[in-house]
C-alpha cells in the first residue's frame, strides 16, 4: 500500500510521467545504438527538434487560452518563403528577419481578429487560413525561384554556433524560456489561464478577451514565423508544401506533454518535453534503421498512451489520496465563531 501511495504522489506531480518516459527512451536508444549519445547525433537531434519545439511552445499558449491554431504549419512555410525572398531582393538580414516575423504575426492577427472580433470558431478560422496560406506559398514558389542566397550571415542563423552550441538551439532555448516565464509570471499569462478556465467568468471579471485572444494568436503566428526563418536559413531553399503537417505535430507534442485541449491548463515546458519526446523518437528510430513511415504510427500511439497514462495516474492518485490523511485535520473547528467580529472589507 505504501508503495502505491508513493507512486501516486510522484505521478501526481505535473509532467513527471512524460519526463520519466522520455528519460527511459533516451536510455533505451543509447543502449541500442552506440551513436545515439554521440555529440554529432545529439547536435542533429536538437537542431531538428527546434522547429517542433518552437511551434509546440506557441501552441501551448493557444491551447491554454482555450483555442487551437491549425495555421502555424502554413505560417512557417509562408514566412520562410518571404524571408528568403527578402534576402534575395535586398540582402538585408535584419529586414528579412523582420519580414519573416511580421508575416507570421500578421496571419496571427487575421486569425485572432476573425476569432475574437467576429466570434468564429478557432478551428474553422485557422483551418481556412491554413488552406489559404499553404496555397499562398505554392503561388509564391511558382513566381519566384526560392533557392539560395549569397548571404553568409543568413546561413549562419541556423547553421552557425555560439559557444559551441548550434545557434538555432540557442535561439529556441531563449525563446522557450521567455515564453514559459511570461506565461507563469506576468499578468498576461495569468489572464490566458483565466480565459481558458472559464471564458465567461474571465470576461465578467474584467479580462478583455477581445484583446487577449488576438494577442495570443499573434504570438503563435510570430513564433511560427521565427521557426520559418530558421528553417529557411537551414535549408537555404523553400519548396511548395514546406511546413505542412507541422501544426499537427505541434498539437501532438502539446498533448503528449500533458496540455489539455479544453483550455486553462498546461504549460510551455510540458509542450517542449512532448516535442523533444517526438524528436528523440524519430531520431532513435532512424538510428535503429526503422523506416520513417512508421514514425507517424508511433506518434499516434504515443498520443493515446500519454492520455491513457495520465488518466490512470489521476485515478490512482484520487483513489489513494484520502487514505494517508490524519482524521480530519482541517475540519471546521467546533466554535471559534463567538469571536466573529465584523471586519472592515474595503
Amino acid at each position: 500500500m505504501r508503495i502505491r501511495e508513493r507512486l501516486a504522489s510522484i505521478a501526481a506531480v505535473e509532467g513527471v510521467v512524460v519526463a520519466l518516459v522520455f528519460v527511459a527512451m533516451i536510455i533505451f536508444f543509447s543502449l541500442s545504438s552506440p551513436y545515439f549519445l554521440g555529440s554529432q547525433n545529439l547536435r542533429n537531434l536538437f537542431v531538428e527538434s527546434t522547429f517542433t519545439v518552437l511551434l509546440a511552445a506557441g501552441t501551448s499558449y493557444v491551447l491554454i487560452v482555450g483555442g487551437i491554431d491549425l495555421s502555424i504549419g502554413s505560417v512557417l512555410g509562408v514566412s520562410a518563403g518571404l524571408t528568403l525572398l527578402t534576402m534575395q531582393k535586398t540582402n538585408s538580414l535584419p529586414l528579412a528577419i523582420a519580414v519573416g516575423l511580421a508575416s507570421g504575426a500578421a496571419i496571427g492577427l487575421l486569425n485572432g481578429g476573425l476569432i475574437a472580433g467576429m466570434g468564429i470558431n478557432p478551428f474553422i478560422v485557422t483551418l481556412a487560413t491554413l488552406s489559404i496560406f499553404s496555397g499562398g506559398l505554392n503561388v509564391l514558389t511558382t513566381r519566384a525561384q526560392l533557392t539560395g542566397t549569397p548571404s553568409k550571415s543568413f546561413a549562419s542563423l541556423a547553421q552557425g554556433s555560439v559557444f559551441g552550441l548550434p545557434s538555432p538551439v540557442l535561439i529556441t532555448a531563449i525563446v522557450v524560456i521567455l515564453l514559459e516565464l511570461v506565461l507563469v509570471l506576468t499578468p498576461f499569462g495569468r489572464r490566458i489561464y483565466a480565459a481558458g478556465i472559464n471564458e465567461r467568468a474571465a470576461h465578467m471579471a474584467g479580462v478583455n478577451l477581445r484583446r487577449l485572444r488576438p494577442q495570443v494568436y499573434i504570438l503563435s503566428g510570430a513564433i511560427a514565423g521565427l521557426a520559418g526563418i530558421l528553417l529557411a536559413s537551414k535549408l537555404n531553399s523553400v519548396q511548395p508544401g514546406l511546413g505542412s503537417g507541422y501544426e499537427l505535430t505541434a498539437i501532438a507534442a502539446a498533448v503528449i506533454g500533458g496540455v489539455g485541449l479544453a483550455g486553462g491548463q498546461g504549460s510551455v515546458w510540458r509542450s517542449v518535453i512532448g516535442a523533444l519526446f517526438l524528436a528523440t523518437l524519430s531520431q532513435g528510430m532512424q538510428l535503429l534503421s526503422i523506416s520513417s513511415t512508421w514514425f507517424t504510427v508511433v506518434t499516434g500511439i504515443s498520443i493515446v498512451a500519454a492520455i491513457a497514462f495520465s488518466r490512470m495516474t489521476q485515478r490512482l492518485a484520487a483513489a489513494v489520496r484520502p487514505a494517508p490523511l490524519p482524521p480530519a485535520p482541517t475540519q471546521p473547528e467546533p466554535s471559534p465563531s463567538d469571536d466573529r467580529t465584523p471586519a472592515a472589507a474595503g
Partner: protein
Amino acid sequence: MWEIMSSRSTDAALLVDDQDTGPQGSVVLQARGAGKRYPGVIALDDVSISMRRGEIHALLGENGAGKSTLIGILSGITEPDSGEIVIDGTSTKFSNAAQSQSVGITTIHQEQTLAPDLTVLENIFLGRELRRGSLLGRFLLDERAMRKRVEHLVEEFGLTADDLRRPAGTLGALKQHAAQILKALAFDARVVILDEPTSGLADHERMSLFENMRRLRDRGVAILWVTHRLDELFGLADVITVLRDGHHVATVDPATQTPDSLVRLMVGRRRSAVAESSAEARGNRWSGPEEEILRLESVSRAPLVRDVNLVVKRGEVLGIAGIAGAGRTELARIILGADRADKGQISVNGKQVRIRNPRDAYKLGIAIVPEERKTQAVLGDFSLAKNISISDLSRVTRGRMIIDRSAERKLANVYVRDLEVKTSGIQQKIRNLSGGNQQKIVIARCLFTRPALMIFDEPTQGIDVAAKNEVYRLIYEFVDAGGGAIVISSELPELLRVSDRIVVMREGRVAGEVPAGPDQSEDERSDRAEEIMALAVRSSS
C-alpha cells in the same frame, strides 16, 4: 400504474423516527449511516434518512452541511465510504447514476440539466427512447408512443402539447422544471430529488412549482426537497431533516417548528444570535457627501432595455426589482460594458463615459458579482488567491511586468480573513469551497479592485441563511464606507431589507420607484412588497 393516495394521513409524518413500514407512507428509500470523507473534510458522517411514499421531505442545512453529498449518494453520483442504501427493504449499492435511476430515483438539479437544443419530448426520453416494434423499426424512434406516454401529464404540469416540440432551451425556468418532472414521471419515478428547485423562479412561478410538487406527492412519489427558503416549507413539507457540518441534527414535523427554530437547528445555538443580530446591523451610515457615482440617461438596448434613467449615490443601496425577463440583468451587463447600449448616456462620477467592455468598467471603479456563480464568476481551477486578484493584477504586479506572488498571497489572505471565508488556505482551488464561500471570494475579487460602485446580481442565489446574512453585511460595509451598490434580486424580502430604495423594472423600462430599508416595519414592508409586485406585473398600456 399509479396508486393515488387519496387519504394521506399526516400520522406518517409524525412517526418520523419510526423506521418501520407504515400502512400509508411505506418507506421506499433509506440511507443508513451514510458517510463520506474528502481530503481534509468529513462531508457526511453517519447520516440516516428515510423517504416514504407520498411524502415531501425537506432537507435543510447550511452550505457545506452535507446536503449535496447526501443527494450525490442517493442519486449514485457519489460513492459513500460507509453506510448503505435500502430500497424496499433490500440493501443496495449505486456505483453510477444509471443504477439509481433504474430503481426509480430521479434527481432534478439546481442547474438545469436539459439539453437546450433538443425538444422537450426528446429530453424526456433522452437515452431511454421508445423504438418501433418491427425488425427494421428497432432503429427508428417511435415518437407517437413517446408522445402518448406523457400526453396526459403535460397539461397537468403546466406545459402544452406544443411545448413538447419546442427546444428545451427556449422554455423558461419553470417550464424546464416541469419538463424535468415529466422526465421523472414517464419512467415510474418513486423518489424525486429536487435540489433547490425555486432558485431563479419568480414568486408566481414558485407557486406553480409547489402545485406540481403536491401533484407528485398525490401520485405517491416521495420527494426529497432541498431549499434555502424557510418560508416555503410551511404548508408544503411533511417532514424536515436538518443537517449541520455533515451530521444529522434532527428530523422534525414542520407543525412543531417556526422559521426561527429551524434556523437554530441549521446553524446551531452558537451562531444563531450572530445571524439574527447581523440581520439589522447597519450602524454607521456613510456621512460624507452624497455624490452621484452613476447616472444613466435614456439607456436602451433593444429589445430588453428601454429608455432607462437612474442614479446611484455614495452610501446607498439601490435595489432593482422585476420579474424574470424584465431586463434587470441586461441593464447590469450594459453598465459593466459586457453588452453595449444602442443609445443613451452613462456618467460615472459626473463624467460622461463610454464603457466598451468589463475592463473599462473595472478601470472606472465598477465591479460586479454576477448571477450564476458557477458559469459567470468562479474560475474553478484557480486558487483562491488567483481568483481574488484577477480583476486588478496591477495591485500585485512589480514594475508593471511580473506578478509578485508573495504580495498576492498576503493581500488575498487579508480579504479571506476579513470576509471570514472558511478554507484550509488561499492556495486551495476555489471549486472545492461551498457555494457561500465561493460567493465571498467573488465579492473579495470585486473589493480587491477598490470599486466605487458594486453590482450584485442575485448575490445570495443558492447560499444558506448564515452566508446570506454575511453577504448583506458585506454590502452594508461597502456602502457605509462610501461606496454605492446596485442589488438585483428576485427575492422581494431580501431586496426590501437590503436596499435603501428600489427601482422596479417591467419589460425593460423603469416602472416606478419604492422606498425601502432596514428601518421599515413589517407592515410597511408588506405594503411595499405589494406595491412592487403591482408595478412589476401590471400590463403595459
